């Protein structure tokens, strides 16, 4: 009999708990899914303008009970103290409860990113339970609000789709950095290397054609025509200690990615002037299949870093039609030429980081950490101070792969005949 009494009590307890329970329960259709949060400076000190980009699940969905003609997204901007408290304020406008489940991008205007108070604001993301550390950070040239409003992807109906795809693709080709909240925190707290955020804009800027190669561009500079979306994501914003201090073009971002071993290998398509005919440019495909090697020597109190970057290169075009593939000498020449060219570019880039940013953007401190036994020694070395004055040498080791799908081309003369 005793057992039954227990059974009853437990049963009743469960029933009552069931009646009172379900605190965290929230059905999917009661949520408004925020895809991106835009942050802007407000005129008033200490306030921010928060823009929510909310996706509409019904857009584009096939439904048995009839489809809707609702727009794919909803955008709300409001002024708040930070982007945590803004959540409830937004509910004055949005009917469903604001959910960060699908939050994937944090869009910050350059103006705000350059503000020293930006770091205070972004650290509230570390407190919020729902915000993940894999959140991507995008810095926009214009106001974040304007960026979100102008961003109208044509082929991806819903914004969550669009951001996921474009960022993923951009990272694979090295045009934009892998910029998530976790690396923002680690880089800021690590106090040695700079953090790179994605740079984007919808604000077009006309620029002369001739002084740029394909990728030496930053967002807003690509000359694009047609009916596509205005948004461009290329290049990166450089953050030092949680504050934006500069920006880099797509090419610089690529170089930074090649120098950085903590990045996943990227697959780069780029062009170099043809060594055999200066009028043309050679298209090459570059990837890193082995890790860089790093060496530290200390001559005369000035640290000397040596970085060796092994590159796997496939030359994909032969505009001068010299058929270098079959010619050993030409291959050697090409290799030498490319090595010099890339090394020069890298060296220039490093100089820029040393002079302009006064810090490295490619996690140089990480491989050199093993030269220190303790954190104390590492801190005394003071990476931030030492790097700008250090001597950094880059060596490139090129390993040729295929020369395109079809290695031989007809002789130009013969064709012309």
């Amino acid at each position, binding site marked *: 009999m005793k057992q039954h009494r227990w059974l009853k009590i437990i049963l009743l307890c469960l029933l009552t708990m069931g009646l009172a329970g379900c605190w965290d329960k929230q059905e*999917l259709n009661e949520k408004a899914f925020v895809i991106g949060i835009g942050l802007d400076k407000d005129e008033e000190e200490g306030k921010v303008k928060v823009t929510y980009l909310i996706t509409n699940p019904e857009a584009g969905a096939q439904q048995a009970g009839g489809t809707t003609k609702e727009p794919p997204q909803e955008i709300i901007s409001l002024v708040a103290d930070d982007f945590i408290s803004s959540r409830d304020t937004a509910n004055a406008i949005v009917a469903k409860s604001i959910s960060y489940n699908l939050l994937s991008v944090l869009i910050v205007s350059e103006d705000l990113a350059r503000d020293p108070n930006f770091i205070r604001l972004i650290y509230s993301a570390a407190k919020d339970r729902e915000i993940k550390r894999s959140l991507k950070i995008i810095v926009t040239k214009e106001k974040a609000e304007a960026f979100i409003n102008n961003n109208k992807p044509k082929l991806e109906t819903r914004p969550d789709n669009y951001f996921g795809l474009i960022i993923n693709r951009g990272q694979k080709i090295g045009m934009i950095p892998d910029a998530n909240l976790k690396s923002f925190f680690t880089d800021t707290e690590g106090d040695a290397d700079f953090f790179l955020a994605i740079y984007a804009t919808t604000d077009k800027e006309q620029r002369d054609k001739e002084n740029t190669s394909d990728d030496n561009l930053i967002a807003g500079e690509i000359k694009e025509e047609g009916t596509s979306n205005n948004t461009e994501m290329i290049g990166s914003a450089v953050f030092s200690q949680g504050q934006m201090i500069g920006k880099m073009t797509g090419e610089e971002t690529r170089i930074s990615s090649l120098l950085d071993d903590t990045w996943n290998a990227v697959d780069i398509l780029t062009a170099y002037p043809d060594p055999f005919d200066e009028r043309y440019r050679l298209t090459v495909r570059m990837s890193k299949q082995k890790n860089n090697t790093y060496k530290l020597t200390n001559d005369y109190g000035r640290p000397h870093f040596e970085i060796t970057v092994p590159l796997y290169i496939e030359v994909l075009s032969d505009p001068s039609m010299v058929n270098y593939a079959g010619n050993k000498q030409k291959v050697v020449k090409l290799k030498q030429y490319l090595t010099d060219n890339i090394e020069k570019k890298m060296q220039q880039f490093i100089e820029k980081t040393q002079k302009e940013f006064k810090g490295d953007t490619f996690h140089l401190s990480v491989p050199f950490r093993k030269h220190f036994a303790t954190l104390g020694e590492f801190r005394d070395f003071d990476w931030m101070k030492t790097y700008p004055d250090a001597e950094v040498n880059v060596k490139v080791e090129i390993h040729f792969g295929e020369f395109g799908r079809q290695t031989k081309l007809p002789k130009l003369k013969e064709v012309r005949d």
Partner: protein
Amino acid sequence: MLKEMFQVFKKRKQKPLSMQQQLVGEQTELKEQSISSDLEENFQTLKKLFHIPKNNDVKVRELYIEGLNKKACLLFISTISDVKSIEENILKPLLTNKSGKEIKEIVSIQAVTEIHLFKDAVKNLNQGNTVLLIDGCSQGFAMDCPNFQGRTIEKPNTEILIKGPKEAFIEKVDVNISLVRKKIKDENLVVESIDVGARSKSEVYILYIDDLANDKLVENIKNRLNRLDVNSIQNLSLLEEYIEERSYSLFPSILSTERPDRAATFLEDGYIVLLMDNSPDCLVLPATFWSFFHSPEDHYLRFLYGNFTRALRMAAMFITVFTSAIYIAITAYHSEMIPSELMLAIAASREKVPFPAVVEILMMEFAFELIREAGLRVPSPIGPTIGIVGALILGQAAVQANIISPIVIIVSALSGLSSFAVSDISLNFAVRLIRFVFIICAAFMGMYGMTAFFVAGVYYMVSIKSYGVPYLAPMSPSYKSSSDTMFRRLLRNEKFRPGFLKPSDLQKKQ
């Protein structure tokens, strides 16, 4: 309804008075009398006992045995005895016999036993035997000639295999024993019988291999059967509830199978098998979780195929138990887990549905169970209707009317379909019922509630025992065995009998 539910629990332990004392109308006193030497008197007593002439099929044949120069009387129940054999082998020799031989030497029947009490006479008659009473003789003769009607051996109906033997037990116990004996040609296979039931005496046959089965276990089961104090137990399915240890438990602790090959395999591993008339199946005990989970085909199929089936069945079991619950937990509590596209798709499909996910799921699961139950009971001519009604109305129409979101149909169909892969009916029910508990847990506390219940369930499962054998043995706690649990091993590597049975001979091959 709640009150009634509690009453179900309450009535459990009202111990009935001993049956022997209150068998009204059983004429116990008459039965206890011994057979006298006066034929007329004996005849009257039996008439009384068998309600002759009210009782139509009890036949009495009075005759005169010339050789002995005595009057005699032959009794039998014509519907359950072999009338032809009585005529050929008993009546004819008795009537034509002229010599003064003993009765036993006159009749040509396999077994002739002398009986002294009316009790035995009654019992023998009820079993289809013929009783011969002779004037001036204070004993009767019971002659073996039963002929109960039943069907012939057929294919199994519930445990269907593609590869392997295709005989099933039938309602005649001697046929069943014969089927088992056919598989185990071993003189050590013992078939003991115990009477259960005070009014209707039914025999329960205990089968075990004498030098393999653990003696204590056999003793334990015999005791249990002897202690039963009920009027009648018709068949094994009813007996099962009388002898199982935890009648309220969700988990079955006695295995019932209709396949003689399976029973034989269990016997050879040292298990005990119970057989009974009127039961087209046998009970195997002790039973562990794995014996419900396994199917004989796992071993009949080649190694990889058999294990693939096992994996499939395990997956099916998990799907049945967890899919619906996980769907609720994820959509209502942990929505961040779903890939964004899917999440938005679900959100979109739920937009127009008026009910919370739990209600949707419960509705669909209930509907599925209904279709299943109705489909089982429906007379076969209108069987196809059920399918049409189920699939069409519940599926498509509910979605189109925005009552159920399409994804819920997928989820509940998946869990329903998977439940069929668990072939054992007891385990099947257990799994289906547990599913509902998990759904409620998930609705209440999401994954946390589910895990809490799951861990509690595992604690329960490892602590229950079937006749002293831990339910999840030999996986945990581990015993020396062939490790035939989740997956089977190569037959030549399955060297041991299950150690948890404590068999006398552990090793079954080198």
